[in-house]
């Protein structure tokens, strides 16, 4: 990749983070929780986006960010109050800035009308505090984001520089040595160094791992500013650095330049103050590194292989009749524990807080509320819950769709709500939590709930169910997941995008999750997504069917039992139901579904009761249960194609491939067979 392109990519990645940080801050401002730190954080984010954008010549983006930044600057200096009106404009501006970034990323330029209105609003805001000369200055400048070497700007006959350098403890922690930096400065020109001991406390309160010394360095000669900055390049976030010209000749501001970057005011002259603060803030939180995802994936794969090898080893040892209590057995147990821990740690590298998806939702809700003329409040809970990156990436679309539905279909208009005795503002809650080794994400609203009569009518109209069908409330609710179902009588701009809840469900099922609905008329609906934390491993029950071995995901299994003859009742065409303590469950032979010959009859085998999401229970007949293992999921769809009823494959301890059954797929296959069986006698 072209190095410039690579830097650009990094810039856009940073933009994503900055935009998220910005939005977070703006929401805090809106909810009235803004302190100066929050406003500063937003300012820094916008400023950094602008700065980077300037370097790549994204003029529109920079121009917009600049106006935005001006308003934020007023907010920061307290000349503008962060009231609700301002916050709304700022949030909207934040959205537009995100659009600008997106457009720049796609190599497009946002149409001028897209940001005209918001630009005007922002300009009104920055003019609000009346007679502000700063705003006047900015207005007068035709901003051009040219890349300018700073040394060009400095007065030609530079006398020298006064540098104040005060390292933080972090500088030392990163193995930097101030003396070397000072020595390097000396290579640029004549230096005079005085140490500044003002920060040095009394001996009894000195912390040995803190930094107290600072230095004032006078560097003489005509030296370009960036040469000096280069010296401090690696420590800029870990020290206070203030570089000022020895004598400040009145600078002539060339027309068309950003005053802020070149004015020799102390704050601006201190290198990049925003960057410095950002560094400090980041350090206060957590230290992170950027790692290529491929590297992590390779590690994950290797650990997966290791787990397989370990299982293989255990099996070989067992075959050699070495008891588990022997030293070898102990060692193996230890290895197993360590491996599991290693695997969990490696998986944890890939996890991220769901925040990254959740943060896209406030904007969506704002836009939807504006389009539908509804008043909506979005409550987000548990956004720190961590889950695998792949899961997060694939959550965006279903969540977006569900929130759209909640606002568009779920919530009523303010008038309707008032008539129903509810507050005019509807609430949509988005929450995430860990529950039993899975992540549960819920989208709920306090709207009208699912109109079951309407859903039923629609389903009959679309021939999804028979007119005479007797359905429970739950079954009716679940109809909305059927392909080809859409309750909106008119295809609206918001919901009717050709994807229905069936696609949402498909997405969730593909992730190994399930989706359930709870709904109460007039008080709202709740969609719950239950998802695995990772897509790489699975706890499964290993079963034998004929000469084949299959893995059943443990998450789907309710219980296993040995059927008694009197519990199996014939039902319909060659079908059977199994009586499980009073409840009759369809009995299905896995061998039949998978076309395997020579498998045991139901009575000789073992029945495993599984629950598929939304569609009820199923009793699967297998020959025997071989054990319970954590297996590494290996997709074969890249080399082959999807098989109904098979989720993926795995490699067992003996090195052979076993197929992982997809319970939902099996139920689907079962139903279609059942439907065929029922249709044939009546159809002809």
């Amino acid at each position: 990749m072209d190095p410039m392109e690579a830097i650009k990519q990094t810039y856009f990645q940073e933009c994503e983070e900055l935009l998220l940080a910005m939005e977070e801050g703006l929401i805090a401002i809106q909810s009235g929780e803004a302190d100066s730190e929050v406003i500063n954080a937003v300012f820094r984010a916008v400023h950094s986006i602008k700065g980077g954008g300037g370097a790549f010549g994204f003029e529109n983006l920079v121009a917009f960010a600049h106006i935005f930044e001006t308003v934020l600057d007023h907010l920061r200096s307290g000349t503008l109050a962060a009231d609700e009106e301002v916050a709304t404009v700022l949030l909207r501006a934040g959205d537009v800035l995100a659009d600008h970034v997106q457009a720049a990323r796609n190599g497009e330029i946002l149409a001028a009308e897209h940001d005209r209105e918001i630009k005007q609003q922002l300009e009104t805001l920055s003019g609000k505090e009346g007679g502000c000369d700063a705003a006047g200055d900015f207005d007068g400048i035709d901003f051009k984001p040219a890349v300018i070497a700073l040394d060009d700007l400095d007065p030609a006959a530079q006398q020298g520089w006064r540098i104040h350098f005060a390292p933080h403890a972090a500088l030392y922690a990163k193995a930097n040595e101030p003396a070397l930096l000072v020595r390097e400065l000396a290579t640029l020109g004549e230096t005079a160094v005085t140490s500044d001991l003002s920060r040095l406390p009394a001996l009894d309160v000195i912390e040995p791992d803190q930094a107290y010394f600072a230095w004032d360095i006078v560097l003489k000669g005509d030296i370009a500013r960036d040469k000096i900055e280069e010296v401090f390049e690696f420590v800029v976030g870990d020290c206070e650095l203030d570089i000022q010209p020895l004598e400040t000749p009145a600078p002539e501001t060339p027309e068309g330049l950003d005053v802020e970057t070149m004015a020799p005011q102390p704050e601006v002259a201190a290198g990049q103050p925003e960057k410095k603060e950002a560094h400090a803030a980041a350090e206060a939180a957590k230290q992170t590194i950027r790692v290529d995802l491929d590297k992590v994936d390779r590690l994950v794969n290797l650990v997966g292989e290791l787990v397989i090898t370990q299982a293989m080893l255990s099996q070989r040892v067992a075959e050699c009749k070495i008891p588990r209590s022997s030293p070898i057995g102990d060692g193996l147990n230890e290895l197993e524990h360590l491996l599991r821990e290693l695997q969990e740690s490696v998986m944890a590298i890939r996890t991220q807080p769901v925040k990254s998806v959740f943060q896209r939702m406030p904007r969506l809700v704002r836009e939807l509320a504006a389009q539908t003329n509804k008043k909506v409040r979005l409550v987000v809970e548990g956004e720190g819950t961590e889950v695998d990156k792949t899961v997060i990436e694939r959550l965006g679309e279903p969540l977006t769709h569900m929130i759209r539905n909640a606002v568009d279909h779920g919530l009523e208009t303010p008038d309707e709500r008032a008539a129903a005795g509810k507050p005019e503002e509807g609430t949509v809650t988005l929450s995430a939590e860990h529950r039993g080794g899975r992540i549960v994400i819920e989208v709920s609203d306090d709207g009208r709930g699912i109109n079951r009569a309407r859903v039923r009518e629609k389903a009959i109209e679309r021939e999804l169910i028979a007119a005479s069908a007797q359905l429970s409330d739950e079954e009716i609710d679940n109809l909305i997941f059927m392909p080809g179902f859409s309750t909106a009588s008119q295809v609206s701009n918001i919901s009717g995008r050709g994807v229905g809840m069936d696609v949402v469900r498909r997405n969730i099922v593909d992730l190994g999750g399930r989706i359930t609905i709870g709904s109460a008329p007039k008080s709202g609906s709740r969609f719950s997504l239950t998802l695995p934390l990772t897509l790489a491993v699975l706890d499964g029950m290993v079963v034998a069917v004929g000469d084949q071995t299959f893995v059943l995901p443990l998450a789907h299994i309710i219980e296993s039992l040995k059927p008694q003859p009197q519990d199996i009742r014939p039902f319909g065409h060659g079908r059977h139901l199994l009586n499980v303590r009073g409840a009759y469950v369809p009995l299905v032979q896995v061998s039949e579904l998978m076309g395997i010959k020579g498998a045991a009859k139901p009575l000789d085998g073992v029945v495993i009761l599984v629950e598929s999401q939304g569609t009820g229970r199923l009793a699967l007949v297998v020959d025997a249960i071989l054990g319970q293992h954590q297996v590494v999921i290996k997709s074969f769809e890249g080399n082959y194609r999807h098989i109904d009823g098979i989720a993926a494959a795995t490699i067992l301890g003996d090195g052979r491939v076993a197929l992982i059954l997809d319970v939902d797929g099996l139920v689907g296959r079962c139903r279609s067979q059942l439907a065929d069986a029922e249709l044939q006698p009546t159809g002809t």
Partner: protein
Amino acid sequence: MSTETIENASIRRQFITFHSGDQEFGADIMAIREIRGWTKTTSLPHAPDFVRGVINLRGVVLPVVDLKARLGRGCTDPDPKHVVVVVKAGERTIGLLVDAVSDILTVTAGDIQPTPDLARDAQAEFVEGIAVLDNRMVTILSMDRLAASLVGEGLAQAA
């Protein structure tokens, strides 16, 4: 004949040849990853007869195709003497069950004749051409087409 064809004619290509049934086939050596002995496969449900199942190739789940069955000449009854040729075609890696691997063949493009029009059967779909050397006739198969036929429509019809 244009000059282009003449230039192409001098380009040398290498093929691995193998026997399946009574025929000798060739596959471009660049597509071949390795050659393994036959091991028992895990069969896939609802798969066409030419898909023998999957095997574990160092952690990768590899579908194995019975070449003889794929070309519509009946199933192979594999024993340990049979060979699985691991082929990488595009993004896909598949195993090809054949009777035996025989040779590496270097031919120039000029030695390869187009498929005779008469032979329109299950095989024709995958044939790139026919290499004629001395008294041998080797049918050159397109690994790309063979692997691609495992996915989607082609397979659904075949099944």
